[in-house]
């Protein structure tokens, strides 16, 4: 446990630039949405309404943009260290590859859950401020799409993580992850919809996509983990 915590601390410090980027990505849409709402609000709207609308609309943008950060994180966690040759230093420490990989996944898990909860909390606060329907943002917060977006983040992370376990360049890993994820989305939109749910619409909130993306993501994470542990060279 001591080792995992130490290595997770190292992951946090090693990816702090990405963390700063992620916070910007999360904060900016909320700030933009709130500002735009405040500037264009109807005269009769209260400040609470305007703020609530900004927070809810902004959280939609934040959670969608944060998927890109998950892609970056997945691609960077292994390939970034391999490209920077810091694995040579890390692999000489008396810890197993499994512990190193688990600490990376623990860091990514804490990060993604924290992101998701934070955005959810902001959206929820916006909802609580007015407690009324504000249109699409309200629907988003109240829907399974909010969960689905998180699973899309998981898929993006998983595919770029798997690519990262094989490649030496984090940017290439991200591109490979984005390509693989796009293939899964196309598969979901074209094949799965026609085969299993003829009336399925992309704009409808449905758990089917979640149930398909989740096992694919888990498989990609486990495959990347195994690949990382088995690969001998740093």
């Amino acid at each position, binding site marked *: 446990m*001591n*080792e995992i915590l*130490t*290595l997770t601390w*190292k992951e946090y*410090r*090693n990816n*702090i630039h990405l963390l700063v980027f992620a916070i910007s990505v999360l904060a900016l849409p909320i700030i933009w949405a709130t500002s735009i709402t405040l500037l264009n609000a109807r005269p009769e709207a209260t400040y609470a309404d305007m703020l609530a609308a900004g927070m809810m609309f902004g959280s939609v943008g934040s959670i969608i943009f944060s998927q890109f950060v998950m892609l970056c994180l997945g691609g960077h966690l292994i390939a970034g260290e391999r490209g*920077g*040759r*810091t*694995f*040579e*230093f890390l*692999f*000489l*420490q*008396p*810890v*197993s590859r499994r512990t190193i990989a688990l600490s990376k996944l623990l860091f990514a898990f804490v990060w993604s859950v924290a992101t998701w909860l934070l955005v959810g909390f902001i959206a929820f606060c916006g909802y609580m401020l007015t407690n009324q329907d504000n249109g699409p943002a309200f629907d988003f917060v109240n829907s399974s799409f909010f969960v689905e977006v998180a699973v899309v983040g998981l898929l993006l992370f998983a595919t770029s993580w798997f690519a990262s376990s094989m490649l030496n360049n984090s940017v290439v890993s991200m591109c490979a992850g984005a390509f693989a994820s796009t293939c899964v989305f196309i598969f979901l939109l074209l094949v799965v919809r026609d085969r299993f749910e003829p009336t399925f619409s992309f704009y409808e909130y449905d758990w089917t996509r979640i149930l398909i993306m989740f096992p694919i993501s888990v498989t990609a994470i486990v495959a990347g983990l195994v690949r990382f542990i088995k690969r*001998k*060279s*740093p």
Partner: protein
Amino acid sequence: MSTVTQTETIAMSPKPMVPIDVEINGLTKAYGDTIVVDNLSLSIAKGSFLGLIGANGAGKSTTLKMLAGMLETTRGSASVLGTPIEQLGPKELARIGYVPDSHQIYRWMTIHEAVWFCRRLNPNWNDNQCAELLKLFRLDEKKKVKSLSKGMLAKLGLALALSHEPDLLFLDEPMSGLDPIASEEFLDGVLKTVSQRDCTVILSSHSIDDVQRMSDSICLLHEGKMLAHRQTENILHDTKCIRFVYDGNAEPPTLPSTIRSRNDEREWLITVEKFSPLMLEKLASSPGVSCVSVEDMTLEEVYKDYVRGQS
């Protein structure tokens, strides 16, 4: 012209009663058709200091990386501290120290953080030893790794590698690019720590003087092949250059254990691996041979003759 064979080398390895820390049998590493380490076999006794000498691409770093479990082998086997290298785990790594040629310690870390990080991961960490080494190398714990010079970074790498009191230390060209003073301080740090403990050391370096100064035995590598593995004093004592003038029409007489033979018109120079006075007598009595003399060689000359004798 003959070169030292693998069989001869094995015969020169320490006696069976001496505990062996590193045992290598036919170790080979290839990348596609390119063979980087070719059928390397040697044994290193516990507490001994082995110097690996070779040019760039001789296979020194690859060998050390394989021994540290950081590279897969293509063929052959090796064991380190009694454990096959394929099975090296955290327990064994805790007994191994490794100082690479380029020190890839996280650049964002301060020295204090780097020490803290390694200390948390190494069960055998010795705080006193670490403090002593940091003091010896005049490393300020508040400094960031990215602000360190190459020499200071090498010293930090050594301090981190020695602070968990390893039984086996790999030094992979750690002094490349260091100025003479930094290099000497580095080696002093190694000697100071190693002399306190029964630590086995493998040092690979381009600096033949440093290797000669530090090593009990020397292994000469060239293009992945081992040319010789002998005790340092023996290699200098036994390897001689024989100079003579030959006026005959036929080929000049050959000598056993010749490493390299060359001539400048009538004057011949033959480097032999195992010199004996009988060689001189035999040579002097050969027809057409005159002005026979024998010269001592430096380790650098020996190494160069081994390498040039290959071509």
